[in-house]
């Protein structure tokens, strides 16, 4: 009997040994995407595009960004308005921070972006109980063929000069469209939410009046808000979307994000073009100053999608006068006072600064002062205190 039992046990073991109940995959398996985003590009490339463009779409998470005070406050003169128009990015633009995915795409063919990772913590705004990240899908021609949208940034701070690489017109990627360009335009954005919905005063690419984004990934649509609402925004009141009927939140499965190709202005981002053809605001009335701003924003709307900004706090950085004389006939410049934000009780810096617009590769304003520090023109121990150079066109009175 004992022998029979042993034989049965051995037979059972042998049977088990040759049979399988499943497929073991271990870590050698294709990665399951966390989200799959369908995207389609419509329209035609402009005639100025390359004959054989390498069209790609990048899923770009957005940064929380504040414009510098000079770009927010009303211009004090027509020349300052002109500098704002050419040097200040749209304060309501989508500011790229980090791309999570980047795939080739063809016009009128739906492509799928597989998202392998969640947005990192520094891309999500809020706290652990309620935070959110937004992304724009950016279509571009991969000029240098490196398979990614190369982001540039303004050269407005010395700390960034060491690794500053503006590229050249021949190597810079050209943006032809995006699902989310500016809060003042209709958009379709990818949202990722964790925890509770953002509060009513949550000012990270706000969509006031629209329903809260659902948890996890979703596609949100909105009409954008109009420029007439910007005055309220300056006062701290978040602008409401123009058309609340266009507010929509949908799952990734049921939505194809559609991006229409646009032609970037021929001279947007061209080297040294700031104000070269710009007489905006030259006649000096308030309406003309507004026009100057609108013109600048539209002109650079697409090219600025390839621009990020390491300084997201809105801090103004100052420089001492350059060794070489700037071409005052060619550059867009102004002499301006030092802006003061409402509620700022630290005192007003007297004197004037020389401001000049930089348009390439990213919009920015250079602030040049005779005396001061990197981020404070009124510091007690100035980093530089120089005599006005011969070309200095502004007041030298402190």
């Amino acid at each position, binding site marked *: 009997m004992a022998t029979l039992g042993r034989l049965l046990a051995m037979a059972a*073991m042998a049977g*088990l040994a040759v049979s399988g109940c*499943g497929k*073991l995959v271990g*870590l050698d398996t294709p990665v399951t995407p*966390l989200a799959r985003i369908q995207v389609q590009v419509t329209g035609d490339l402009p005639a100025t595009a390359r004959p054989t463009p390498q069209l790609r779409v990048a899923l770009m998470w957005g940064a929380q960004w504040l414009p510098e005070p000079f770009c927010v406050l009303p211009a004090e003169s027509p020349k300052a308005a002109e500098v704002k128009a050419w040097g200040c990015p749209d304060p309501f633009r989508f500011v790229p921070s980090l791309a999570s995915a980047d795939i080739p795409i063809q016009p009128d063919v739906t492509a799928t972006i597989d998202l392998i*990772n969640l947005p990192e913590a520094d891309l999500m705004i809020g706290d652990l109980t309620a935070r959110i990240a937004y992304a724009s899908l950016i279509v571009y021609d991969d000029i240098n063929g490196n398979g990614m949208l190369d982001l540039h940034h303004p050269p407005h701070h010395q700390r960034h000069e060491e690794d500053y690489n503006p590229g050249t017109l021949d190597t810079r990627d050209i943006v032809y469209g995006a699902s989310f360009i500016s809060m003042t335009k209709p958009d379709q954005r990818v949202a990722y939410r964790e925890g509770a919905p953002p509060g009513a005063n949550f000012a990270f690419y706000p969509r006031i009046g629209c329903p809260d984004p659902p948890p996890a990934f979703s596609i949100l649509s909105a009409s954008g808000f109009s420029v007439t609402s910007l005055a309220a925004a300056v006062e701290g009141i978040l602008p409401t979307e123009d058309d609340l009927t266009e507010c929509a939140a949908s799952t990734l499965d049921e939505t194809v994000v559609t991006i229409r190709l646009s032609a970037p202005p021929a001279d947007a981002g061209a080297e040294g073009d700031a104000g070269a053809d710009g007489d905006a605001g030259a006649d000096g009335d308030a309406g003309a100053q507004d026009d100057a701003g609108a013109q600048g924003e539209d002109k650079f709307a697409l090219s600025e999608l390839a621009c990020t900004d390491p300084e997201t706090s809105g801090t103004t950085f100052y420089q001492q006068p350059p060794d070489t004389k700037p071409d005052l006939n060619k550059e867009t410049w102004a002499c301006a006072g030092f802006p003061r934000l409402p509620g700022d009780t630290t005192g007003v810096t007297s004197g004037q600064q020389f401001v000049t617009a930089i348009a390439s590769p990213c919009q920015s304003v250079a602030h040049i002062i005779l005396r001061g520090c990197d981020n404070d023109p009124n510091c007690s121990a100035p980093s530089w205190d120089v005599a006005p150079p011969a070309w200095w066109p502004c007041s030298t009175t402190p």
Partner: protein
Amino acid sequence: MLAWGARASWSTATEHSLTETVKNDDTRLRLYGQIQHAAGRGLFGLRLGVGGTLVYEARTRAQGARAGLCGSDLGSTSWAMLPAADIEAIVVLRIWNSWGMSVSGGPTVHGLHGGARVGWSSSLGVTWQH
């Protein structure tokens, strides 16, 4: 001196990658034959085992729950019985009455996906001999 018998053992391991977490529970079932030689309080042997290893694998997509995945996208489980054989050198040292400790180790081979996977197993244990 020859000996033979059956053995069962269990082990578990969890591996992580950037995108997956895989937990394996292995139950090793063996019939074995052993050549052994007693020397003083010790026993030295060489053991040949043949049988199978029952593997339970649980895969979980890293960050999948946060992203709202569910079902097979979030994780999966599977069972498999893999044919296996191993050779182990074994040393048993009797310490107090019937109690002692053992050390063993040697190569092991599993059949998987039509091929052979060679590995190494070792163990440290407490023994009781009648």
